């Protein structure tokens, strides 16, 4: 127990926790969007994230010829490379998410089978993806090339406002705002909400169910891909099973905030990130996940619908 960090490193931990938490939130969107329309835990989302980290790395190495030992970029070229890599990673993840839906879920959904069958199918997809990457890349961890120099805006109250941390925070908030507007205002967003309220009724209203569901997976893939990009840019390495822990954390965030709810994913991820940072500073990092899960149990006991309430729609499973 080391409570002194609460005073000495409070703001540093808070900043790191926010950045990590927002990465969780972006992955959590992949779970929460799909859960909203299908009432299914998209188990393969963690592996979509993993593929995203590898594609970020590969785009940097192959497309932009960034070797590990090259100096970091700067100026307009830096922004160009970062943006294109981000878009590449998002695109790969979105396409993969659509493919996962097609292979693992669509047939089962058409037959109207039990939910566990879809869960196992998703677990199978998840094993398949992580094993293919393991066979291709080996079990060792890979370093991503340094594209962004880790310079700092300066230190305030012990918190180091590093460029990658700030980029993650700002970009994640922007993505959430755009998504919120998209879901409430756009045609497709309205269709997604309609499907999540009632599949039957939205079909009667002439909504193309398959298209909406595919697009939901694609949006979840886009945000997961963005998360993968920020993760790789910040930590600069990846391994074939990177998705496992982050996937569990992201799913926990989604539940914590109220699964099926966009804002829930945001606040859930944020609180989980902060909680993890403070718990590992106070108790030691080995007890991090235990604290997180205990908090989760307590939250669910007191408020089973998550801290930020039920989804867009109130449903009874």
């Amino acid at each position, binding site marked *: 127990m080391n409570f002194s960090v609460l005073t000495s490193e409070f703001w540093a931990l808070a900043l790191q926790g926010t950045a990590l938490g927002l990465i969780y939130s972006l992955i959590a969107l992949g779970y929460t969007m799909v859960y909203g329309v299908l009432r299914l835990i998209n188990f393969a989302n963690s592996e979509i994230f993993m593929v995203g980290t590898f594609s970020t790395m590969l785009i940097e190495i192959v497309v932009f010829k960034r070797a590990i030992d090259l100096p970091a970029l700067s100026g307009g070229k830096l922004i160009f490379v970062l943006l294109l890599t981000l878009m590449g990673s998002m695109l790969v993840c979105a396409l993969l998410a659509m493919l996962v839906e097609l292979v693992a879920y669509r047939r089962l959904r058409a037959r109207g089978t039990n939910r566990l069958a879809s869960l196992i199918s998703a677990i199978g997809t998840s094993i398949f993806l992580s094993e293919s990457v393991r066979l291709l890349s080996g079990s060792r961890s890979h370093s991503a090339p340094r594209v962004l120099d880790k310079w700092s805006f300066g230190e305030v109250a012990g918190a180091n406002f590093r460029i990658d941390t700030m980029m993650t925070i700002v970009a994640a908030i922007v993505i959430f705002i755009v998504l919120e507007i998209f879901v409430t205002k756009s045609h497709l967003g309205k269709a997604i909400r309609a499907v999540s309220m009632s599949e039957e009724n939205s079909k009667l209203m002439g909504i193309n169910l398959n298209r909406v569901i595919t697009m939901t997976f694609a949006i979840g893939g886009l945000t997961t891909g963005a998360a993968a990009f920020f993760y790789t840019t910040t930590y600069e390495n990846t391994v074939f099973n990177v998705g496992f822990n982050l996937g569990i954390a992201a799913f926990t965030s989604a539940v914590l905030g109220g699964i099926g709810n966009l804002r829930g994913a945001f606040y859930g991820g944020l609180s989980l990130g902060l909680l993890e940072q403070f718990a590992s500073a106070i108790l030691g990092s080995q*007890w991090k996940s235990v604290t997180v899960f205990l908090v989760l149990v307590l939250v669910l006991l007191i408020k089973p619908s998550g801290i930020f309430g039920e989804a867009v729609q109130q449903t009874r499973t």
Partner: protein
Amino acid sequence: MMINLRDKGAKVWDGWNRPTRTVFTLVVIAIVALLPFAATWGPTSFLNTPITSFENVLVYPVGMFVLMALGLNIVVGKSGLLDLGYVAFFAIGAYTMGILSTLYGWNTWEAMPFGILFAMLAGVLLGLPALRLRGDYLAIITLGFGEIIRIVALNLTVTGGTNGIPGIPNPPSIFGIKFDLMNPAHYFWIVVIMILLVIWMIRRFTVRRPGRAWEAIRQDEDVASLMGVNTLVYKLWSFVIGAAIGGAAGVLFASKVMVIAPQMFNFNVSVLILACVVFGGIGNIWGVAAGAVILAYLPERIRFISDARQLIFGLVLILMMNLRPDGLLPRKKREKIKEKGAQ
């Protein structure tokens, strides 16, 4: 239409009289008991596994997986509760055995009741708060519980941290049957006896009050509760019985492998056991047992493509669920649509 082997089998079984059934059961048990010799007997030698010896594969993973899948089936299949952290109870049983034997010198049979007891206690502790929650929340809570148990084992000194507990003794011999490294077949027979006990127990439960309550809860919890079923108590029972079976498997596992470490009890084991249940046919004992045998044996048998075997395992899960989403041997039709009263 897919042929429902389960219903075909049930029809044949119903047509038999009592002596025929007894003989059939005994023959099946005898064949299972003779399995350890299959690898050395010519016609069945194709069953032999390339790396680990066939007898050892029969004990772990095959036998243990069948045992645990049957236990998890009570939770997932009978009362419809999604448990993603079943490995926790297995770990509790194994660590109980490890600690009691290395620190206090207890033998396997003395530690067994305590392993079961602690697993049941953990089941109550987890179940009382968790079982009030809806399906997917329960899934994440149990998943978290499984991880907590593993991380606690990883960080406590009494559990040996990363190194785990070495030097766990083999069970003492009973009636001159020795349990050691040279005789894996003897462990297999113990596992078979445990499996038979569990099957007998589940069949008793299914036709009595708890079984009916579980069925009602699985179909519609609210209706069950309105009809006067104390849903929390019965859900807790199914959870605790499942935990007890996991604990028993853990105790035997620990004294078979003699050294246990936290990484043996990771999330993948829970997923694999759940896969066995769904793959075989949720809710049906025979399906679940068959699913466990296949999913435990297959990766060992295809070791020659060693590196890709997990990949193939993933593919098999996807294909199987897409082709037969109810599993190999689905549960009885009459459990889906109640039509027994019509007889």
